[in-house]
């Protein structure tokens, strides 16, 4: 018995080392395959003449780009791009989700072909990226404060106050520009890159931040979720920015940009874009607010 056992132990050691070896081989192959899939997909689709386009979008910005209860990517950006892709059979859109601060960076790095995360134009961005010519949403932002706050009514009232924003977004850009010309008493910008909606509403309600800047529909969303039937946030003053959002491309990719623009134009003319907006966002935000 004992002898058998010893033999078994020896064999077991060997079996173990063989197992380890194979696990490593399999993992290595898996890794290669993981790296290779995108390429492989590209190759096979180029045979069927549809070029794979990687779209980079966010995963936590409801209702534009987020994951539903089952973990699938859904939202306005996705629906619009799906409709665009239907009009452009020469392309096949694939989606990669990123944290907001990493989308444009990934475009820069060549990891993606289209950035879709409610991007507005500004000079700095246009210097580096190619913006679409056709907008697909209007994006009018207002100063947003707690309903209990009555002292803030305009941009100038924000001087010396704490305003929550995140790195790389257009609000930060505008407020930084404002600060550059009001260096004596600047707005205190608090950059929070990974905030959840809970943090936003709790932070504003409890005075962690005095204000932030967002669209009417985003404010309404937070009030619905956390207000228990009452409004906890309100918007004040004139719009901070009235702008449109565009898809973003890398500088040299004019061909893709023109194709997508053409498709958006078609969607606008056919009324399909407005329809998507009403379905997903609750109203038509494609032309004006």
């Amino acid at each position, binding site marked *: 018995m*004992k*002898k058998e056992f*010893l*033999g078994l132990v*020896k064999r077991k050691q060997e079996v173990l080392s063989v197992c380890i070896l194979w696990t490593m081989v399999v993992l290595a192959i898996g890794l290669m395959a993981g790296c290779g899939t995108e390429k492989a997909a590209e190759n096979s689709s180029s045979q069927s003449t549809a070029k794979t386009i990687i779209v980079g979008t966010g995963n936590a910005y409801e209702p534009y780009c987020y994951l539903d209860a089952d973990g699938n990517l859904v939202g306005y950006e996705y629906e619009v791009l799906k409709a665009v892709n239907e009009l452009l059979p020469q392309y096949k859109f694939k989606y990669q989700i990123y944290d907001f601060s990493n989308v444009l960076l990934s475009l820069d790095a060549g990891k993606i072909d289209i950035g879709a995360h409610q991007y507005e134009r500004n000079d700095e961005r246009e210097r580096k990226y190619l913006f679409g010519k056709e907008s697909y949403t209007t994006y009018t932002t207002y100063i947003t404060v707690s309903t209990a706050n009555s002292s803030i009514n305009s941009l100038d009232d924000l001087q010396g106050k704490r305003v929550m924003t995140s790195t790389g977004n257009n609000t930060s850009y505008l407020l930084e520009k404002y600060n550059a010309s009001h260096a004596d008493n600047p707005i205190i910008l608090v950059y929070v890159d990974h905030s959840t909606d809970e943090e936003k509403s709790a932070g504003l309600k409890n005075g962690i931040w005095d204000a932030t800047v967002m669209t009417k529909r985003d404010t309404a969303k937070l009030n619905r979720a956390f207000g228990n039937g009452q409004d906890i946030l309100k918007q004040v003053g004139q719009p901070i920015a009235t702008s449109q959002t565009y898809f973003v491309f890398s500088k040299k990719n004019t061909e893709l940009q023109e194709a997508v623009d053409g498709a958006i134009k078609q969607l606008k003319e056919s009324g399909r874009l407005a329809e998507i907006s009403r379905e997903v966002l609750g109203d038509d935000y494609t032309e004006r607010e």
Partner: protein
Amino acid sequence: MIEIKDVQKSFNGQSVLKKVSLQVEDGDVVAVLGPSGSGKTTFLRCINFLEHADAGELSIGPKTVDLNRASKREILAVRRKTAFVFQNYNLFNNKTVLENIMEGLVTARKVPVKAAREKAEESLVWVGLKEKRDAYPAQLSGGQQQRVGIARAVVLEPEVILFDEPTSAMDPELVGETLEVIRKVAHRGITMIIVTHEMSFAREIANKVVFMDGGVVVEEGTPEEIFGHPKEERTKKFLSRFINAESMYYI
């Protein structure tokens, strides 16, 4: 026949072995004596390439290797013809007694596991540790560990077994059982080179005694010659100190 010629070795510029040579006939039991620091352990380790000699030659049978410029294959070949018994036993801590003895047979000599196990078990009976076959080294006394160490060397059936002060790390009451086993090895007619401080044991078991001091062989001869009529002054001085100490020990 084993012949070691002109081994030289220095550590950090300090010469430890200065042209040491030794001839060992088949079946010889050679005892290497000498004060600590005389280079006897280093000499033994050079033979097994555990220490890299600066110069020297080693012949085992017809084959001769340069101790300084031996290739990897030559070193391995020498090691497979020799076995080593360590001062601090050096049993494989992660292996049982039986596995310790089988390791060299199975892995180095490619003996089939079944045959190796039979041989190992036989050797365990022989050193009187049959019941400890599945124990780990940490569970054994020093004397028992050294007996396993000897069994591990003997099963390899080497041309020569090198003993490096096999009993000097042991409690005194365990020395006897270990020497008994070494005696049994000697009676088997296996060639051995033993570095030891056990004078009376060396006198009893060896047919050739080498006295080393300061990195050179001072004197060599039969036990009667060295112990009975030492010629060199250094040998006399060394032996007198030891014989006195040993006889006192036996009182």
